[in-house]
């Protein structure tokens, strides 16, 4: 089930080889597959945003800033 989910990692600048290695091992333990697609997204301002299937983990600066707005 989880191996059919596509994993997309968005970052502000391209990830270094070391960062990519850590990510793969984490994903393998978590999701079961270590393959992921990288995307460079300058609007994040900082941090990472990882989407596993339809679940998105937002650790970006933009995400934190938008939490400051309340509705």
């Amino acid at each position, binding site marked *: 089930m989880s191996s059919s989910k596509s994993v997309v990692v968005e970052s502000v600048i391209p990830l270094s080889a070391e960062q990519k290695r850590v990510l793969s091992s984490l994903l393998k333990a978590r999701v079961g597959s270590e393959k992921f697609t990288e995307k460079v997204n300058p609007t994040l301002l900082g941090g990472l945003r990882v*989407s596993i299937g*339809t*679940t998105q*983990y*937002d*650790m970006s600066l933009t995400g934190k800033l938008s*939490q*400051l707005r*309340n*509705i």
Partner: protein
Amino acid sequence: MKQSLLSVLEQQLDGLSLDATKRSVGKIVSFGDGIATVDGLDQVMSGELIVLGKNTYGLALNLKADHVGVVLLSEDRDLRVGDTVSTTGRLLSIGVSDQIIGRVVDPLGAPLDAKPPIKIKSYEALEKIAPGVITRKSVTVPLQTGIKAIDAMIPIGRGQRELIIGDRGTGKSAIGLGTILNQKGQNVICVYVAIGQKRSFVAQTTAVLEKAGAMDYTVIVSASASDSAAMQFLAPYAGVSVAEFFLKQGKDVLVIYDDLSKHAVAYREISLLLRRPSGREAYPGDVFYLHSRLLERACRLNDDNGGGSITALPIIETQASDVSAYIPTNVISITDGQIYLEADLFNAGVKPAINVGLSVSRVGSAAQLKSMKQVAGKMRLDLAQYRELAAFAQFSSDLDTKTKAQLDRGARVATILNQQWDEPMPVEEQVAVIYAASNGYLDGIKLEQVKKWEEAALDYLKSSHSSILSSIKKEAKITEETDKQLKSAFATFATTHTEWR
């Protein structure tokens, strides 16, 4: 200057922890008519708030196997197919605090009256389960509307739901607004929910309430005709959620829904766009539940649960006086009675155009001041006899004296019930006036002069016999002593004023 700004910012940011968030995301597959069909959103809750684009919010209302139907809460021209949308983890709620009193807000709590945003003390969920049976108490405290016909013959209690039903232009909103005006000093907070109304009407209403000083205890929740159907659908729930905030504090609240017919139409629009199956008159199958879950939240709580109450006055507009249409029959079966307004009466000059025969209050005299109960019984009888004989009124010169006397008495009692919508009358004055009418003090007065008589008599009582009025209000009963005093006061008044005979 700079330092204080920094310290303010530091204060606000103090104690905030911004962790990584986990959300469900999806992609817009199709978009139009205020509905976005979204693929993904696997962990979405029913009715959850979805954020699309930058500032656009939507409600996930249709959870299907392969897509989610999201109803947009506001227009957004920047959304495109393929955009990513995400959940917020929150069900729809409105931020409330004591500061909301006197404000005009939209169903999400955003201010509409050009004043600063409301400081939020707590979030009240829009969809809540109504209080259980054990937590409730029966309705015994009256809610005075200030309208003689209603307070005397169709009395409303705090915690009751009373429907105001009639054609367009018969004075339904006027009864609601008049009731709000009469709550001055009665310790009742009022919430007026305007659903699908013209913005000019909401502006006018706000101005009228402000002028009368009613905004000191009133909140207006408005989703006007040009707002999205979703906002109009949410407005009544936002109104009752605001009321529940005050109910929790043990206060009495009055909520007026103006009107639920437009609410049902907005819900029908959303349901049809979401491709839900339609039933009678194209309304969705759960249109009864739409209104029953709203009106069941009006209640009176027992002392263990705070002792507060929410009284609901829903308004329904009928087409051509058809009370057996789908939505009117639904709401009639939910509420504890109805006030039936007729266009014929309105055109004949009876204002408020209440048809006393067809109107009922299922709580009745349990929620009526004893003094009012004493005088209203006789008045009701007089009016009923008058209505029976009304057909013979045209032949009044050919009738026997007894019938003629009944007709005259009935006509005067009916005329004394006429009232301007923005002139609510305190209950002690109502009791005095109805006492006079039922006991024949109006019998010699010309019909056109009855109003003048009423004004003058009340002035006289307020100036020379204010003790009678205050004792009616205090004792809540007409004692023998008060009865004697009233008789002598009216007798004196009759002898000094003969100009209206």
